[in-house]
């Protein structure tokens, strides 16, 4: 087994690990770094449960090789809490009951955060298309879209 040595920043902290050359980022994050908030629903880029950001860009961590992330910055759901406070998206997801089983939630939160950073006031349709890569089987998405709308509103108020 020929391994690679990877040094990255994850949720603001420097992290180093070694892994086989063909290991995907999701497996390194979960099995080597211990960030099991990153979920695997398919392993083929079709469900979005493994969504993380790589230098601010939304990616499916099951489609990224760990070898590629050397020197890059990764953010996962575990990094969304700031100063001990839930991110408005996290708070609104709880308050709107936007999760049932919750397996899709980490990926959806990461994707929704990227959306709101780019577009603080998205329309319903923009939210739906932005989250179209994240499967949720429990909710029918109704409460998820409403929670994202509410979080957007809260964040707009704060930044004013």
């Amino acid at each position, binding site marked *: *087994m020929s391994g690679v040595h990877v040094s990255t920043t994850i949720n603001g902290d420097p992290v180093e690990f070694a892994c*086989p050359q063909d290991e995907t980022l999701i*497996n390194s994050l*979960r*099995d080597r770094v211990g*960030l*099991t*908030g*990153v*979920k*695997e*629903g*398919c*392993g*083929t880029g*079709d*469900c979005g*449960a493994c969504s993380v950001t790589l230098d601010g860009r939304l990616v499916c961590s099951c489609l990224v090789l760990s070898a590629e992330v050397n020197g890059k910055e990764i953010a*996962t*759901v*575990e990094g*969304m*809490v700031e100063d001990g406070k*839930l991110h408005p*998206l*996290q708070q609104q*997801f*709880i*308050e709107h*009951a936007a*999760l*049932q*089983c*919750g*397996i*899709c*939630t*980490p990926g959806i*939160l990461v994707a929704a955060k990227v959306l709101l950073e780019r577009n603080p006031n998205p329309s*319903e*349709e923009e*939210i*739906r*298309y932005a*989250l*179209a*890569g*994240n*499967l*949720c*089987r*429990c*909710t*029918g*998405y*109704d*409460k*998820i*879209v*409403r929670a994202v709308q509410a979080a957007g509103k809260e964040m707009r108020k704060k930044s004013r």
Partner: protein
Amino acid sequence: MGHDSTYTNQKFKVVGTRVNRPDGVDKVTGRAKYGADAYAPGQLVGLFLRSPHAHAKIKKIDVSKAEKLDGVKAIITSADLPDLTGDDRDLTDILENCMARGRALYDGHAVAAVAAIDMQTAKKALKLIKISYQKLPHVTDVDQAMEPGAPIIHDFVRDRKTGKPSNVCKISQFGHGDVEAGFAEADVIIEKTFKTEQTHQGYIEPHACLANISSDNTGELWVTTQGHFGFRSTCAELLGMDVAKLKVTSSEIGGGFGGKTHVWIEPIALALSRKANRPVKVVMSRDEVFRASGPTSATSIDVKIGAKKDGTITGATADLRYTNGAFPGFWAMLGSMISFACYDIKHVKSIGYDVIVNRPKVAAYRAPSAPMPAFAIESVMDLIAAELKMKPIELRIKNAAKEGTRASYGPTYGPIGIGPTLDAAKNHPHMRARLKKNQGRGVACGFWFNFGGQTCVDLNIGIDGSVNLIVGTVDVGGSRASLALIAAEELGIPYEQVRANVGDTASLGHNDMTDGSRGTFSSGMATIFAARNAITVLRERAAKTWDIPLESVIWKEGAARATGKGNSNRPPLSLKELAASAPNTGGPIAGHNEVVADNAGVSFASHICDVEVDPETGVTKVIRYTVIQDAGKAVHPDYVEGQLQGGAAQGIGWALNEEYVYGDDGCLQNPGFLDYRIPVCSDLPFIDTQILEIPNPDHPYGIRGVGETSIVPPLAAIGNAVSNAVGVRMNHTPMSPIRILKAIEDSKA
């Protein structure tokens, strides 16, 4: 059932409020631990080798090379799994489904499993296992499997009349009256055949477990499941263990919908662990979930309904053929029981044929077996309405079952909710909204039984007066919040003072699965009784403290209060105070309850749906959707709405996109989310819900099951809407663009 049913006009303080769930923070921060999120020191990776053939004799399995590979710690084939199932045929089938015994019965059937030190080694080992197969003729289609001369899958399944081997494992008939006489009275009769393709529950979390058996044959299993107690007994029986020596902990569950009521990988993971003497973690890939867990049946259904000019249905029949996968089941039986349950029909008959095919063994999927006959029957209802120039909703209202109606499955209904849901649908603003070009509206009804079952809970009062509720029903969608609400209501304390947890199999007595919409219904009932038991203890402690008789102490608003002469100016003793003094009044305070919570109450729903179909591409877009359901008391309305919306969304996927596609080789062509397309966010509109809180008289709070009924009407509601939009009757799900275009084309020819 003898329970106090003074539920009518019950006023609740916290039940019915929309509180935040106790597991919310863990789930939005990534801390919640699901099936694949557990790790044990020295754990091995377990992987399965699966049949690439739909039906094949396994002539030889050679594991010698794989065994020699460095890092391989155990290999299991059926040779390592002695049959300990005795004459329990169901259990034998489970064993054989977990690992093929001499024959692979479907594409994806497990034939061997490996435990190795890491993924790379385990994958290499799988490649080194050599299996020689002899392909056998296969059949995957339900109608073909019933034809004479079809390949026979199990020799032990025999035709009831001829005694010859057959793929039909069960024929069930329900109904009453004389259908021929019924049809003779009819002014219009419509007869049509429908097909529904096989779908999967599609939970986002694949099956996963961490198994750990020590050399003394005691063990632990961490697993994503809808019922850890059931998993425990099945695994223990298959492996020859005592149930008490196997502790099963249910992880957080990433969706189940019926699919996690059955074992697939778990007994094998335990067997691997036992052989390797190390913990073994097994996580299914998505491909394996599709090929080798338990999807629902594909069906083929003939429906005939006759009605008088005024709309009265005089007779109805249904012939229902269901695939069961590679092992005998009872899915068509279930379908034939419920098919006409929404209606009051004098002469009615349903016959169900359970058929074995070379597909994975069917498991329950939310209101199992019910959406398919609803699709067929509700479609024919619309055809009858059109023939009679009646509004479809009026035809349904006219024939709706009511108190005193003899249900198509036999018994006479007590008060039921189909009428109210239809009335609510009729009066809903959705029904009056204008439709544009290429748009159509559909209405459909659905029924589901709901059930209760064995349940027990522990309610422990902490030294500070906070309350720990331990339940044995897995929380699939927020039930811990609902159960904590119920405990708080009964004890008269704030919701925040109660913490609900799901206990493992070592900490509680047996609990049935969270299935049949029973979680909140049954554990809610046990919680109420456990809280009442605890209240009795609390009153005793207060009586002791005050040195007055127990009868003079009542429990109100979270405190013991002394009543009667001379007692009225004693200040009440709160739960906190009583908890603090517990060491000196008799020790820890707790309530416990075991119950068989029968009578979850049948449930009905009516759905309204608008679609727009692009006549060029055949693509259907759902533009508006309304769910109206009789749900009993809604303990936590958010999670009731969530169940209604989630079920509708699954039904919409079933109706429009989802299907198992088998090739001529009998292999599944689309075992992934790319080609098996479940609805994504941009496919759906907001889903409106209207909860009718018709209380269940057999539950102290009027609660009934809510989780399943919502998946029953969508296939039909969409079928009717699409048919209205394109002017052609659709009779095959999913109504994919290709099928819609073909139906339009055929109608022109």
